[in-house]
């Protein structure tokens, strides 16, 4: 009986979250009419996540280059280092790690912000002023997250492959030829790799923003509720991102 209760509670939550997603999507046109609100949110969600994403990208690209170089050098194929780093970053690590960082940095802050707005009656206050909080507060944040995620993932990949990560370690430190590094990337990487990477990051963007906003909006209106919403956002988003990554990769590798 307990299992039935858990399952029915899970399904109830899933149904509620799905309804919430449809409500947010229905409110997107209203958000598009208020570009200033969206730009403000792109700044606070995206721009303020930029440094952590860029630094992480640099380190991950650097580590991939170090590990890749050791293996490739055994076969005299170190000139292929660029494409190894690029595949790893563009197909997988760029979208996935960015989404995980985004969940930790932006997702948690979104959930806490919305949860606190609820706990302090700001959302109720808006409703009583005949302003729909879904349109005024939630939809602009959702849209901003959808725009910010692919941009952040692209910046992550650029930092990892070219600017500071793989290129710095492979070419500058380990002496891989600069021309081979880039030409291998150019010939090995196809446009569909980049499109698939962007699709992944968009899907992750929807998932993380949806989870964060849902958790915040449905948080119990007290300090414990806000704390729980913040934690759940990071935990659930991270698991969902990893699961979705597997599903998307399986489909894209057909």
């Amino acid at each position, binding site marked *: 009986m307990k299992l039935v209760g858990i399952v029915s509670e899970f399904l109830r939550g899933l149904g509620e979250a799905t309804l919430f997603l449809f409500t947010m999507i229905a409110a997107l046109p209203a958000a598009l009419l208020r570009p200033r609100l969206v730009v403000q949110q792109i700044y606070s969600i995206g721009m303020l996540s930029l440094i952590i994403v860029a630094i992480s990208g640099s380190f991950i690209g650097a580590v991939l280059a170090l590990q890749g170089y050791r293996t490739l050098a055994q076969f005299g194929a170190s000139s292929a280092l660029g494409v190894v780093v690029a595949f790893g970053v563009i197909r997988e690590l760029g979208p996935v790690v960015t989404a995980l960082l985004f969940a930790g940095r932006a997702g948690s802050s979104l959930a806490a912000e919305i949860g606190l707005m609820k706990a*302090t009656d700001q959302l*109720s*206050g808006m409703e*009583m*002023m*005949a302003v729909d909080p879904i349109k005024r507060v939630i939809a602009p944040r959702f849209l901003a997250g959808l725009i910010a995620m692919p941009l952040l993932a692209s910046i992550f990949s650029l930092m990892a492959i070219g600017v500071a990560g793989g290129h710095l370690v492979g070419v500058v430190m380990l002496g891989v030829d600069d021309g081979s590094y880039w030409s291998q990337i150019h010939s090995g990487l196809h446009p569909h790799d980049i499109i698939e990477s962007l699709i992944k990051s968009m899907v992750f963007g929807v998932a993380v923003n949806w989870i964060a906003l849902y958790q915040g909006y449905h948080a119990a209106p007290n300090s414990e509720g806000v704390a729980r919403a913040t934690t759940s956002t990071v935990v659930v988003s991270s698991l969902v991102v990893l699961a979705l990554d597997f599903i998307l990769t399986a489909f894209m590798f057909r």
Partner: protein
Amino acid sequence: MTPTGQEILVRVRDLRFAFGPRVIYDGIDIDIPRGKVTAIMGPSGTGKTTLLRLIGGQWRPQAGTIEFDGADVHKQSRAQLFEMRKRMGMLFQNGALLTDLTVFENVAFPLREHSGLPESMIRDVVLMKLEAVGLRGAAPLYPEQISGGMARRVALARAVALEPALVMYDEPFTGQDPISMGVLMRLVRTLNEALGLTSILVSHDVEEVLSISDYAYVVAGGKVLERGTPEAIRTSQSPMVRQFLDGKPDGPVAFNYKTSRDYATDLLGGAAA
């Protein structure tokens, strides 16, 4: 002095509302007369705030009706309800100011959302409303930079920004020092007269509330215990109303929380929890 017909702005009939098994309202009738200040009083936990949320259409009753200016609040579409709410202002207990906006922007918020007025006119209206609550000087400050009493005054300026027909005050005096309380009391009364409002004042600060109300209800245990002018309430002989007005620690509202175990068994048996 029971108000009738067109004089009534909000009419509550046979209202029943419960949170799960906990019954908050068990069939109450309340009339809010137009142009007057009506107090809803009662001990903590009797659902006074709930009543305001029901009138504002944020929650739905299990049974009964609430009419605002002749229209059933809970039979409106979402768009109609939002139109209705433009004619209602609500002052939340903590002010509920938007923390990322300044005092000025908070008061401008409903005007920018609904009025369609040019920015220069919005500025004038906001400054006038802030002047009315004595906080024009605080316009550039953020909510975290002002006191709780000031936040309520800003919220009041915001609540009347769209010149509503009805303003609902949720515990406006709780936790205020005597000066802030005096300021808020004067504002409730003078704004009601100056703007031709109808006010519902939910509170348990008995003397203060009765001194500025035209009409009052005492609510407890899901029922209306007493209704009438402040004078009629003050002279009520109902034991529960007397306990509430006189602040007696024990009476019909028991001092001890209900329990099925007697004291001695609890102490000796060690069977707490």
